[in-house]
């Protein structure tokens, strides 16, 4: 662990315990097929710690499929390597995941506390949540400024509140890679800004690798360090300026008319 830290090029990260075990994720020629249908073909990209990488593209471009391959939830060809800064394989990568706006049974009596405690411990929550676990959950919720929601039913939260709770869960235990899948679709403007400010803060303080899927190009422009434009494969990647000014970007988003 200490050896890895020595090589870490980001001095700010040394304060954080779990940070910088991982330095980058290299995806090489990744393909996913479902039956005869090819969803992803030869996707190659690098995701770096301390950077927010945004995946953009139209619906059906394969963004969510790529996330699910990174999460190990779909079979794929090609390689996904987790490397430390000196190029060696990083041990047990921890991934935090915030799914798309959830559709679930909102009339269930499950509270925020129940949901997080059930995710963080094996002890069946109907036995009650121990004081220690309660403290752990409160610490997690405090990180995303939603500790007041602990005893509310999960189904009674607004879209923005729910995403904060899910972000709190994704950050516990501290992940090396944080995956955000359209995390704030349908959330109001204030909620959206404060969500991304929290994410930005995490990136800086904890030196996490963050992978974001978003349709909101304004958010991507402001918060992403790197942008990956997808259409079944990677058709352009680089800094937001480079990608947004590319002819590929023009073609994907504005082929049928002038700039919106």
């Amino acid at each position, binding site marked *: 662990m200490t050896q890895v830290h020595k090589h870490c090029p980001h001095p700010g990260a040394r304060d954080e315990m779990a940070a910088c075990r991982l330095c980058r994720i290299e995806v090489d020629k990744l393909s996913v097929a479902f039956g005869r249908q090819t969803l992803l073909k030869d996707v190659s990209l690098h995701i770096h710690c301390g950077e927010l990488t945004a995946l953009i593209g139209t619906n059906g471009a394969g963004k969510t499929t790529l996330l699910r391959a990174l999460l190990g939830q779909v079979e794929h060809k090609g390689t996904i390597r987790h490397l430390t800064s000196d190029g060696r394989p990083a041990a047990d990568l921890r991934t935090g995941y915030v799914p798309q706006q959830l559709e679930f049974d909102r009339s269930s*009596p*499950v509270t925020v506390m129940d949901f997080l405690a059930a995710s963080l411990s094996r002890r069946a929550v*109907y036995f009650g949540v121990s004081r220690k676990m309660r403290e752990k959950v409160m610490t997690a919720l405090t990180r995303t400024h939603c500790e007041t929601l602990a005893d509310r039913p999960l189904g009674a939260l607004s879209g923005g509140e729910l995403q904060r709770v899910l972000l709190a869960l994704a950050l516990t235990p501290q992940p090396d890679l944080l995956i955000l899948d359209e995390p704030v679709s349908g959330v109001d403007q204030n909620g959206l800004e404060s969500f991304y400010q929290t994410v930005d803060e995490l990136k800086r303080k904890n030196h996490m690798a963050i992978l974001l899927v978003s349709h909101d190009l304004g958010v991507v422009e402001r918060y992403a360090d790197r942008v990956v434009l997808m259409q079944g494969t990677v058709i352009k990647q680089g800094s937001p300026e480079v990608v947004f000014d590319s002819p590929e970007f023009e073609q994907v988003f504005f082929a049928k008319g002038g700039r919106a």
Partner: protein
Amino acid sequence: MNAIYAVMDALLPFEWLHYSFMKNALLAMLLITPLFGMLGTMAVDNKMAFFSDALGHSALTGIAIGVVLGWESQMAAMLLFGVIWAILITFVKHNSKMSADTIISVFSSTSIALGLVILSRGGAFARYSSLLVGDVLSVTQGDLLALLLALIVTGVIWALLFNPLMITSVNAPLAQSRGVRAKLTEYAFTVLVAVAVMISIRWVGVMLINSLLILPAAASRNVARSAASYLRLSVLISMVCGVAGLVLSYFLNTSAGAAVVLVAALVYFATLPLRRK
């Protein structure tokens, strides 16, 4: 067993409990109802009301196949068929693009028709019609032991399965990202429901078994404000309705299973105004 009867006589010196078949029936209720109260919570959360209904119907097919194969034990035939059927429905649901309710309906009608065709051959169905409404008064001591065993085993598995099931019911990919094996969890749960249904169906009946699973949990949802109270209240409501229904059926001289379900329905409607808005 006699010691248990003596205790019951001392604690509950009621006229209706004088008969040993009523004592057995009461004990059976106290074993079946917590089992269903427990499983019902996640059956409701995972939208499986229709699924468990289909399982209940498949009990007939299980017995029918047992008859064709010449098996002695109806219970073994029902259990085996029920578990295979539950796994099959879940598998097809996962691997088909058809909607779940259509798939379950196809399986349900197939199994009930197959069961009826086999069992009604030569006009012999009357022998099996008691299975439709169930008869808790015919519980024997051996049956009670089987129910006790089922309750204990289910209770232990439930402690392991509850958290993963709850997270999966909210979002399966999220649960998977937390290390939950979502599919395995779902299969384990369906098997558990299948076993509970098959082991209790002779006492509760094909037509009512599903209500016993769904109603107490649905009523509990009306009042519960946390996962813990959801499960505890569901078990409590289930047990109270079980006993109340049994007593009621004694005095009204009706089917016990139906009376239990009716009481549970009353509790559901009575608690409906308490729902969180």
